């Protein structure tokens, strides 16, 4: 990220009208479109080359102001002493002790609650996709939109009423002779939080993967069948390879979403599990030791780095996926 900033400054110094047209990556476009915006003032000859991007200027400007600049402010703050001046101290603190544990737990939670809901969501999306009932399809697609946005405290309530120590499902299971709390389950620990996250992760997976499922043409299936392929052979040699990049991309998205979820975990555990987003929230609420005010930003910087890696992989996978899915 820091490197990118320097690079961007260089570009604008040398010839700030250069538009990296095919250059992938969100940072690149923002730079490109920002360049287009500046360009409107000067350089008529460039207008023809730049004009396709002028229409994107409002969008690019808005994302820059409300997404790009705040992100840069965090990166900048991560390397600042509270009194001003450059330091690595924040970063050192953010990667040791309780904060390190926070990252590890967050990553563990994100992996669990991206892979499991990813598989379930894929199965559900496929079941819906191959179903002939339009009502079922409509209900699932509208619910997915609503539930993917559902989270936070209301969601925590739902599960406390269900699987809390006196919850409905807990009582049912106890009546059946299985007490989940006697078998290592606890709603207020990592496994519980992961279970609750599925409530918005599965619908998110359905939303993201359904278009990709539409790319599997029935003609391929028929062709494979006519050639004598069995169902598993079709998936092993045709459907699977075509779908794999999309599925992996979607799972990466779920990973990011699980990593960044704050409200649900906060409401459910009120900070008893060390998770990075909750630790960042604590900094914002002002519970900070003197001299450590910027450690929260360093934590945020760490998350941005993780997200950048995830998005890079996502971009590569999307490129592969788009080869087949038009």
């Amino acid at each position: 990220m820091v490197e990118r900033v320097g690079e961007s400054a260089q570009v604008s110094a040398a010839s700030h009208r250069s538009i990296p047209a095919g250059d992938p990556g969100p940072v690149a476009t923002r730079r490109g479109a920002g360049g287009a915006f500046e360009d409107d003032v000067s350089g008529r000859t460039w207008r023809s080359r730049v004009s396709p991007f002028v229409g994107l200027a409002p969008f690019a400007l808005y994302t820059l102001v409300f997404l790009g600049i705040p992100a840069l402010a965090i990166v900048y703050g991560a390397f600042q002493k509270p009194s001003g001046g450059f330091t690595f101290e924040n970063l050192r603190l953010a990667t040791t002790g309780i904060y390190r544990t926070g990252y590890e737990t967050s990553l563990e939670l994100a992996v669990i609650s991206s892979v499991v809901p990813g598989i379930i969501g894929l199965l559900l999306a496929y079941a819906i996709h191959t179903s002939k009932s339009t009502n079922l399809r409509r209900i699932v697609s509208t619910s997915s939109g609503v539930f993917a946005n559902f989270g936070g405290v209301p969601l925590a309530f739902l599960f406390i009423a269900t699987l809390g120590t006196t919850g409905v499902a807990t009582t049912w299971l106890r009546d059946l002779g299985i007490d989940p709390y006697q078998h290592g389950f606890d709603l207020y620990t990592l496994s519980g939080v992961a279970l609750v996250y599925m409530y918005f992760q599965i619908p998110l997976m359905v939303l993201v993967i359904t278009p990709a499922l539409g790319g599997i043409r029935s003609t391929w299936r028929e062709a494979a069948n006519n050639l004598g392929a069995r169902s598993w052979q079709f998936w092993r040699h045709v459907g699977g390879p075509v779908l794999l990049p999309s599925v992996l991309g979607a799972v990466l998205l779920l990973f990011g979403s699980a990593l960044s979820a704050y409200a649900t975990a906060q409401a459910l555990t009120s900070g008893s599990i060390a998770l990075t987003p909750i630790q960042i929230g604590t900094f914002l609420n002002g519970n900070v030791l003197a001299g450590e005010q910027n450690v929260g930003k360093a934590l945020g910087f760490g998350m941005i780095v993780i997200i950048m890696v995830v998005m890079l992989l996502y971009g590569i996978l999307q490129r592969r996926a788009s080869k087949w899915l038009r």
Partner: protein
Amino acid sequence: MVALVAEPLDELEVPAEEEGTGKHRRIRWWRGIVLFAVGAYFIIPFYAALRFSLEGSNGKFTLSAFTSIPSQPGFGAAFALSVRLAVITTVITMVLMVPTAVYVHLRVPRLRRLFDGITVLPIVIPPVVLIVGVLQVAPTVLKGTPDLLALVYVVLAMPFVYRSLDAGLRAIDLKTLVEASRSLGGRWSSTLLRVVLPNLRAALLSATILTVALVLGEFTMASLDQYQTFPVWIVNFEQDDAHVSTAVSLLALVGTWLLLLLITSFDRRQSRRWLRKESR
């Protein structure tokens, strides 16, 4: 695969057909289990919360948690603030995203994938990180007003809105429509307002609903920015009466969902009527 092709065809045809019926049964069987399990996972917590909210303090059935909602202290103000934020967010989002999405589809379709990537960013960038940055760089004028939240919510709503618009734009023959309108002498503004937008009705409606749902449910940023929006109020109120809090959460969820369902079915009927008219 290759080995299979090399086999004589007549031997393959019969088992292939049998395989077909067997496979269909297996798919149905699978579908039943998946739908049942997922359905149970989504419905049981719902049922549990409903039962909890219908339970009076003495354990008897009562509707008071639902009927007393409007008269709860702070509910009106919190709800009004959230509605206001929802309106501002929706207006800015639409004004910003609709022309951009149309433009990308029409003029720079090669950037479509890139846009997919950019608009996905707000899902993965932690809101808690974003709000730290926003609060740091926002000018004091904006920091003193809850409207700052609406401006940031626009970014949060982007992924869902863009996806919805993108799907809508893919479904229509945008290029032909625009060319037809332009060649008949329509200006860009009237083309957008009178040709493109009516065709995107469903996408616009669902984008609006999703935006409103997002704003009415967003807790992280609002609580860290210390404004008492609807979700923040629900949490604060939980300490007073968890039954009412749960009832409000349920109502919000069911309300959004019904609205979305209503809109999609309404739109389906509309488009069917159009098709019928055209075929006559």
